[in-house]
């Protein structure tokens, strides 16, 4: 590098620059070839398929222009419901995850190391166990008649207090989406918590000491110092959680099949059902494109916000 740098920069063409950096290209090649073949190409192909009517019989595929998209927004009520549900889901889950994980991090941070790592482990455990495993357990916990949740609520006097009969959490349109949101929240806290704890560790003690000398209360320190300094991490968590929640699927497939009365239909579940139950690949791909546009634009705006704070 040092030797090459001795050449005057302006005399070298782009081609020479590339040649000089050939080692770097070789280093990225093992990753980039499969990336192009298995990630980029299918992605572009997905865009293409959305303009086709495509079923199990490849011989019958035909180009239909924007018909799939027109159908999505004019003759597919369930998709519109799924669109709304997905947004609702994001709006419920993301703020809750951010608030809870900040709260946990701030409370746990001053505690002894053992306590800190216990809490961290507890909240990371659902991440480790994965969606399938958790969904299976939660179906049982949510059962109206013999589920653990209703039992705990009953001994806590919840039903007596409100004077209502036991709730079938996954059986009511009002509670089904919330119940799924709760499950998703339960496995979405682990990662942000670790991030916030690490971020707190990076805030220098001197700042706190200075604030204390100035007579600031715990609350003031939190609002004026801690929170602003956590901002980059918060934005990062916001973006990643939003992207993940937009893709919620496993809980729907295993816990509700989109019911009751379509209350838990989500975009990705519609994609799955259309492509892998009805074998309408083209139509499913069109839904994928819509999801891509939504998530892409939200991520873009969040990154615009994030741009100044976090460096890549």
């Amino acid at each position, binding site marked *: 590098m040092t030797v090459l740098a001795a050449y005057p920069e302006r005399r070298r063409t782009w081609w020479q620059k590339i040649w000089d950096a050939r080692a770097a290209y070789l280093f990225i090649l093992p990753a980039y070839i499969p990336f192009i073949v298995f990630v980029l190409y299918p992605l572009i192909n997905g865009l293409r398929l959305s303009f086709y009517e495509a079923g199990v019989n490849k011989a019958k595929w035909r180009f239909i222009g924007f018909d799939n998209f027109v159908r999505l927004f004019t003759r597919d*009520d369930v998709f519109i419901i799924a669109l709304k549900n997905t947004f609702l889901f994001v709006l419920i889950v993301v703020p809750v995850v951010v608030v809870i994980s900040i709260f946990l991090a701030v409370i746990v941070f001053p505690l002894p190391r053992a306590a800190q790592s216990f809490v961290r482990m507890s909240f990371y455990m659902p991440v480790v166990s994965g969606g399938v495993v958790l969904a299976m357990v939660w179906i049982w916990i949510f059962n109206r008649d013999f589920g653990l949740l209703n039992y705990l609520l009953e001994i806590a006097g919840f039903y007596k207090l409100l004077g209502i009969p036991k709730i079938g959490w*996954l059986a009511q349109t009002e509670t089904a989406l919330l119940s799924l949101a709760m499950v998703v929240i339960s496995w979405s806290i682990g990662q942000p918590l670790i991030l916030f704890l690490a971020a707190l560790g990076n805030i220098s003690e001197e700042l706190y000491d200075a604030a204390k000398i100035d007579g600031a209360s715990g609350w003031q320190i939190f609002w004026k110092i801690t929170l602003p300094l956590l901002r980059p991490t918060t934005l990062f968590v916001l973006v990643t959680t939003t992207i993940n929640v937009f893709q919620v699927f496993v809980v729907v497939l295993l816990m509700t099949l989109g019911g009751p009365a379509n209350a838990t239909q989500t975009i990705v579940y519609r994609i799955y059902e259309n492509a892998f139950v009805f074998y309408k690949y083209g139509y499913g791909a069109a839904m994928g494109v819509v999801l891509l546009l939504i998530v892409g634009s939200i991520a873009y705006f969040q990154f615009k916000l994030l741009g100044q704070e976090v460096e890549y």
Partner: protein
Amino acid sequence: MRGKWLWIIPVVGVALLALSLFIAACAPATPQIVEVTKEVVVEKEVVKTVVVEKEVPVLVTPTPEVKKPVKIELWVDPRFDPQTAKGHPELKTALDYEKMVANDYIKNNPHVSVEIQVLDWADLPKKVPVAIAGGVPPDILRDYLGRTSAYAYEGVTVNLEEVVPKEELADFLPGLLELYTINGHLHGLPIFYWVQNMVVNAAPFEKAGLLDMLSLDDHDWTFDEFYAAAKAIKEANVGVEYPLVMQVASEQGDYAVHAFIWGAGSNTWRDDCQGLDLDNPQALAAMEFLNKLYKEGLINPDVTTAGWQDVNNLFYAGKGVFMGGGISTVNVSIPQAQKEGKVTAPMDARLTLYPHLGDKPSGLPVGPTGLVMFQKQGRSDYELQEITKFLIHLSSEKWQRDYCISSGQFPTRYSVGAPLAGDPNYELTLEWIKKYGVVSMGLNCPHYYEVRTAMPAFFQAMFLGKMTPQEAINGMMKASKDIFGK
């Protein structure tokens, strides 16, 4: 310090990867390995679970002969239940049964080898289309018409009219062959069918002295009579909590719900198969009736989320007394559940008809299962002939009769006659079919599965009070029209 552990990751990884590549390279194609797997799994299948007898590939290898060898791949549903089937106590698994049938053919045609996979109900709708899309379908598939018709619409099946001799086809019930004819193309050979009725547990009625309310003499009863019986048994305090148990969480077994629509005198599907046909006062009356039953606590409250297992459990526990079912429910499933100790209430299960609104009960839904042959690239005429012969063997009079006896199904060939003659439930069902005919479930209609899957949401909405019965009907009609693009 933990860093020292790291070397384990690549070492284990490389070892496993090498192993995986080895297995991956060998597993899919080579029969030898497949056979080994079979031996292991079959032994284990003694333990009874529903999931067990899934796909277990077997190769029944013939001794070589003069004719050019033919390999046939056969996939079947797990219709034969070894625990409950009559007539073959020596067989342990569904696979054993299918092997027996295949071997019966191979012993006279040693140039043919058959690879059999038994798929379970959850896998059938997933694996078969994937295999078709993957260009690797089986030669012959035995599955329910509701699924095979979709493959016919996709144009991936062989037109059997072109390969099966006319004399053979003449032996089949023409009505059933008609169901299998899609776009002028006979896409499958029906080999047996079930008939759906209602099952009632008469024990609590007897205990409460209400047996008369069940109309068990002629099984002809109206919605009002059904409602009165349901209400009376619930109020009799003999442990019955929700007289009618059913589920609308998924489309599985939806005929048990649609039976009320048929009973009220409406179709579910239009005669021309181009969508649903619920926009009429009869269908509305049926929906209102169901809604009333639910609102008055005569239907299980978890109807919108329950699975069929839950419905069965409610029935076995005596909490419910009316449930969808057929001959095999009464003759096979319930006795089996009793044996396993799952039935915890006095049980006197009887077959009866769903109630009706008009002057007589509706026709009965029939669900045929058929043999479908898939088109495959590179198949020679000779192979096509050989596969056809084997297909005819599978649907032959001999094995159809055996199958009907084993699994409580109805035959599709005239020559089979009445294999279960003498069984009172069988006689009863036959009598009903003669008297009331059959109804169309739309099994052979285009977009059947998609429309069917769209319907439960509206039943759920109605039961949960989010839609009136009329709105639910409107919703289903709109969904159907949207799917058909009208």
